[in-house]
C-alpha cells in the first residue's frame, strides 16, 4: 500500500464514520467502532481530538481495542512530541514506525501463544 492508497482508504473511512454518526438512531453516537465484513474486521478508535486510528484484521481477532490504545500512545509519544512532524500530515517518523512494528510483532506473538 503506498501513500496514495493510505490517503484514499483514510478519507473513505472518515466519511463513512461521519455518516454513521448522523445515521445512528441513538443520540451521542461517536461513530463506527467495529465493522464486520465477510472477509475482515475493521476496528476503529477515535481520540478526543478526532484523530481516528483503525486496524484491519482477520475475522474475530481479539484484543484489538487494546492494540489501538497502544498505537494511540505511540502516536502521542513519537509523533506529537516530534518537532519535525507537521500536524495533519502523513506520518514519517522513524521512531514511530519502529515502535509500531514492534508493538504489532509483540501482539502477534501474544496471539500465537494463546
Amino acid at each position, binding site marked *: 500500500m503506498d501513500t496514495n492508497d493510505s490517503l484514499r482508504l483514510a478519507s473513505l473511512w472518515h466519511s463513512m464514520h461521519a455518516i454513521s454518526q448522523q445515521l445512528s438512531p441513538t443520540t451521542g453516537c461517536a461513530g463506527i467502532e467495529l465493522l464486520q465484513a465477510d472477509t475482515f474486521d475493521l476496528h476503529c478508535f477515535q481520540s478526543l481530538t478526532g484523530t481516528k486510528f483503525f486496524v484491519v484484521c482477520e475475522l474475530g481477532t481479539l484484543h484489538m481495542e487494546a492494540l489501538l490504545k497502544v498505537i494511540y500512545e505511540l502516536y502521542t*509519544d513519537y509523533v*506529537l*512530541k516530534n*518537532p*519535525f512532524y507537521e500536524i495533519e500530515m502523513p506520518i*514519517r517518523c*522513524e521512531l514511530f514506525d*519502529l515502535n509500531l512494528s514492534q508493538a504489532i510483532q509483540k501482539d502477534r506473538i501474544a496471539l500465537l501463544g494463546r
Partner: protein
Amino acid sequence: MIGVGKIKQYSNVLDKPLSRGRQEVSLSAFAFLFSELVQYSQTQVDNIAELERRLEDAGYAVGARVLELLCHREKGNRRETRLLGILSFVHSTVWKVLFGKVADSLEKGTEHEDEYMISEKELLVNRFISIPKDMGAFNCGAFVAGIVRGVLDGAGFPAVVTAHFVPMEGQQRPRTTILIKFAEEVLRRESRLGG
C-alpha cells in the same frame, strides 16, 4: 506541605540551605517544551547549521547556570580546576542532575589529544525525536552539547562541543556522542600543572 510541622526560622535568607528542588519533572512536559523550542528555532533560521547553533546557544545558557548551581550545592562552592576533574563532573554530577543518570561512557579521543567524548545510548532529548531524511546528520543533541559547552566555558575550559549520531553494531538506533574539543590554552595549562 505548607504549615505542617515546625520549620526552623532563619532570620536571613542567605543562611538558609539551598533547596535541592524537585528531583523529577514530567518527561512529557519536557518533551513538548523541547519540541516547541526546536520548532520555534526552526522558524528563525534558514539552514541546518544555524538551527544547530541556536539550539546550542539555548543550551549554553542552561549550562552556565547549572555549573553555578551545582558548584554551590554539591561541591561547597568549589569548582574543578583540572581537565579530568571537570570532565567527570560533567559526566556524572551534571548528567545525574539533568537526566537522572550518569552518562553511558566518557572516553578520550584516539586520534587527537584534545578530544574527549561523552556517549549516550539514548539521549533524553532525542527520546521521541525522529530526524527527517532531508536534514542529514542534524542532531537535537546540539542542545546538550550547548549545555556541556556552557559548563566547561564557565569553569574556565573553553571548548568546541558538538553532537553526532554514531551508528552502533547490532543496534537499530545510533547512539549520540558529544564530542568535546578543548582549546589549546586549556591543554597548555593542564601540562603546566602536571600530573
